[in-house]
């Protein structure tokens, strides 16, 4: 019995390796490191499919450097240490040339040392808290200045908000973002007593007291708004409670940084209508390139009901940038691609051209959308041009002096302009 099981295991492990060997010579391998099971599967499965679609499209066009692309998918199962193991497996055993993956900041922090040690490339597609720039990571999602700060500006200038609730789930992204936002609001003359900060555990489901507090806080005669960094799942009961307690979007709007089309597709959106989200892309963006992307996606996934969202667009941009950089460098060698990719420009889905910056972030437009009853967003505001991603926030005293530049000039992701010293990553 044990014997049979062992040989079965060996056989199971051997198949992909042999399959890999057979095709290793004539393909370029693209690693996909997204959770397909566990808590994060809800968000990450879609991104895996996005990369598979992009790879398929590229192969249909002309391949890359005369070779076909081959996607290698692994499942890190929403388990942070497993992310590092799987990343190592992708790079060392599968010998992939690039990896697209991760969602949560903690998973990125977990794989970072692996990518730096083995000098491979990671494209990270999700909005995050900033305060990081690695030689081996390309951040195609939004930095805080490409999402949080413009959203607050919109509420302050266009909606006239005077009192602020910063509500978040208790982990690194909301804590850092709220620290930046608090500093920013104070720099704009908002008084201490007009800011309320609240953290809740992951998957929090009983929002009664918090919503009741928000209601009281917002009833003080000044226009109030909630800036929400509440993570995925916990949003549903939060919005439900808002609706039930009669807090409507026109009295106290909630602007969210983690609620997109995908998350809304699991929600009854009636009570949410009018609440806001800030992203760099919405499915409802009116542009030709977006229409054809959506058609591609529907064709690939074989369903017209599936939505597109911001991290998918980030993968779209990141993948195309990588392709262009490889073509420019004439090789998939990570060091050469790293050099070639800075300054590369590719179209984004809202009709503009995004550019890879020396700090490994990209330029993106910032859009504010209001949730509609069909689960889509109506765009109510957008930045005039593209906003360059800032790795180190200008609103935190300890970060405002830090700069990231991976060109010859500094070749450093954490350069202190005061002390003129380059410190390593802090992970």
């Amino acid at each position, binding site marked *: 019995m044990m014997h049979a099981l062992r040989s079965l295991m060996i056989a199971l492990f051997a198949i992909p390796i042999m399959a890999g060997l057979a095709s290793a010579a004539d393909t370029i391998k693209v690693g996909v490191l997204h959770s*397909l*099971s566990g*808590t994060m*599967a*809800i968000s990450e*499965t879609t991104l895996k499919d996005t990369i598979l679609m992009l790879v398929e499209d590229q192969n249909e066009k002309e391949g890359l450097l005369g070779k076909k692309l081959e996607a290698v998918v692994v499942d890190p199962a929403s388990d942070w240490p497993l992310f590092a193991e799987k990343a190592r497996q992708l790079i060392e055993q599968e010998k992939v040339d690039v990896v697209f993956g991760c969602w949560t900041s903690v998973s990125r922090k977990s794989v970072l040392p692996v990518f730096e040690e083995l000098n491979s490339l990671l494209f990270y597609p999700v909005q995050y808290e900033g305060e990081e720039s690695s030689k081996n990571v390309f951040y195609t999602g939004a930095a805080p200045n490409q999402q949080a700060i413009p959203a607050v500006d919109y509420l302050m200038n266009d*909606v006239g908000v005077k009192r602020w609730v910063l509500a978040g789930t*208790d982990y690194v992204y909301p804590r850092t973002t709220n620290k930046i936002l608090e500093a920013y609001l104070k720099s704009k003359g908002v008084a201490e007593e007009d800011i309320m900060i*609240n*953290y*809740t*555990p992951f*998957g*929090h*489901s*009983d929002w*009664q*007291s*918090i919503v*009741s*507090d928000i209601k009281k806080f917002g*009833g*003080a*005669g000044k226009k109030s708004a909630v800036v929400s960094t509440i993570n995925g*799942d916990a949003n*549903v*009961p939060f919005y*439900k*409670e808002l*609706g*039930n*307690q*009669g807090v*409507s*979007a*026109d*009295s106290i*709007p909630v602007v969210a940084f983690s609620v997109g089309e*995908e998350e809304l*597709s*699991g*929600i*009854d959106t*009636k*009570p949410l*209508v*009018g609440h*806001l989200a800030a992203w760099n892309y919405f499915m409802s963006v009116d542009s030709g390139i977006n229409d054809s992307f959506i058609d591609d996606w529907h064709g690939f996934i074989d369903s017209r009901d599936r939505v597109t969202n911001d991290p998918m667009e980030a993968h779209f941009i990141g993948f195309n940038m990588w392709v262009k950089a490889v073509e420019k460098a004439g090789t998939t060698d990570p060091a050469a691609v790293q050099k070639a990719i800075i300054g590369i420009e590719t179209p984004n889905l809202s009709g503009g051209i995004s550019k890879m910056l020396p700090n490994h972030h990209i330029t993106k437009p910032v859009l504010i959308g*209001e949730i*509609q*009853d069909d689960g889509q967003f*109506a765009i*109510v505001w957008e930045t005039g041009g593209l906003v360059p991603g800032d790795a180190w926030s200008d609103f935190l005293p300890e970060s405002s002096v830090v700069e990231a530049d991976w060109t010859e000039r500094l070749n450093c992701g954490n350069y202190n302009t005061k002390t003129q010293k380059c410190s390593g990553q802090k992970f």
Partner: protein
Amino acid sequence: MVPRQVLRIGWALVLLLVALASSSVPARAVSSDLEPLVGKLSERSLSTKAQTIREIAEVGSAEAKALLETLLAGQVYYRKDDRRVVLVEEQDSAFAIRDAFSGEALGQAEKRSLKRVVINNSIRGFLRGAIARLSLRAEDPDDRLHAVESLYDELTPDTVELLKSRLVEETDDEVQDAIRVALALAALDSADPAERAAAAQRLAESMDQVVHVRLSALVREQDGDPDASVRAAAQSALREIDQNRSLYSVVETLFFGLSLGSVYVLAAIGLAITFGVMGVINMAHGELMMLGAYTTWVVQQALPDRLEQSIFFAIPAAFLVSALVGVAIERGVVRFLYGRPLETLLATFGVSLFLQQAVRSIFSPLNRAVSTPEWMSGQYVVNDALAFTYNRLYIILFASVVFAFLVVILRYTTLGLQIRAVSQDRNMARAMGIKSARIDSATFGLGAGVAGLAGVALSQLTNVGPNLGQSHIVDSFMVVVFGGVGNLWGTLVAGLTLGVSNKLLEPLTGAVLAKIIVLVFIVLFIQRRPRGLFPPRGRSAEA
């Protein structure tokens, strides 16, 4: 101030219209202003749109009001080719459209050929206000109440006059009170200090937010009311209001606590049977709840036309599904492991992972949207400081019913008698002719079925997804252990206690710390009293 004037004209028009309508003259004459405005709704710029909508509100006719309502409901679209503004009826793959002005039917249209007239929050707010103001004479007293309350912020002399005349005709007490508050608010702007002071005194009765804001402004040090007597009156009114408010907020916290406690009780009570009565540590209990929640979703999908009632079908269905799976788990796994708690724990944990992944494979890892029936949304408003949300009220009710149902089963039925007999002394029960293996299955099935019922309740509160069970299993064990293993009443008291104490702590410490404090408290409590609040007594205690 143009909008004020505009509003005044609007009011004049409303009055005119009402006069016209009551003398049964067709209101076409006024509506002709509407036609060019309707056409302008297809403008893309939000500020132009806002202006147009404001002008429509000024027209103030019944048609204008109806148009504003359809705008707010998001039914107004325009055709991409000729920019004709249309009303949309059906939301399937094709739309039935009719002209927004004349109501003339225009046949069907492709979804892609139409574009919605997008509105933003400020327009939506304006629409709500405008519709409410146009409803001051509505049939429904609630509408009239809203209409009056929406006027609190903009009390011009004209509206005051209008409200005064309404007060005489108004028959509903609540609306009358609201009008009195509005008049008192207006009197706060009076030039006569005595009148202002009297108004402030009268406002002490009202719990409305606007009142609180206005009174607080009066007593402010720098820019408050110049007259000392007015300030004193406002101060005493505020004191009274604040006193009432703190009283209400205690009631509110208790309600929050009870409703959270009811969720705890619902989630834990099935466990109280399997763990408490049978002594089986069932780690898959959470997943049985998850199955109940998914059953609710499936039932809702199967009955798309009966959204409001589907939950009543979901309750028995969820009970059955979870109970059957529970029996299968007992027959397939647990029964081989009686008396080996550690193995049971591991095996059922495995089952829980298996069930989670099964759900992921069958229903996709995405959460499923269970919509809340209309009668469960919203809240019962006592006043501005106190309201009870309906879904929580129903959860409390549901939890009590389920609890009573279980107590009745265990105490008054043969099955209950046998379950108790087996749990107290298995060998003796067998000697009396009870088939203990069958009773084990039935007990486990009962516990599992109740977990399914909890799942129905949870589907109305939180996400229906593969992780639903995981997030409630720890709380459930906590409640059962705290209450005393094997005691339903213990579970009830423990669940409610934990719910209330959690909610009492939350405003002071924040949600994260409140949870930690409650956990630490339980750990310490279990140290002192390892058998929980209500320790089992008598023969079963030694088993």
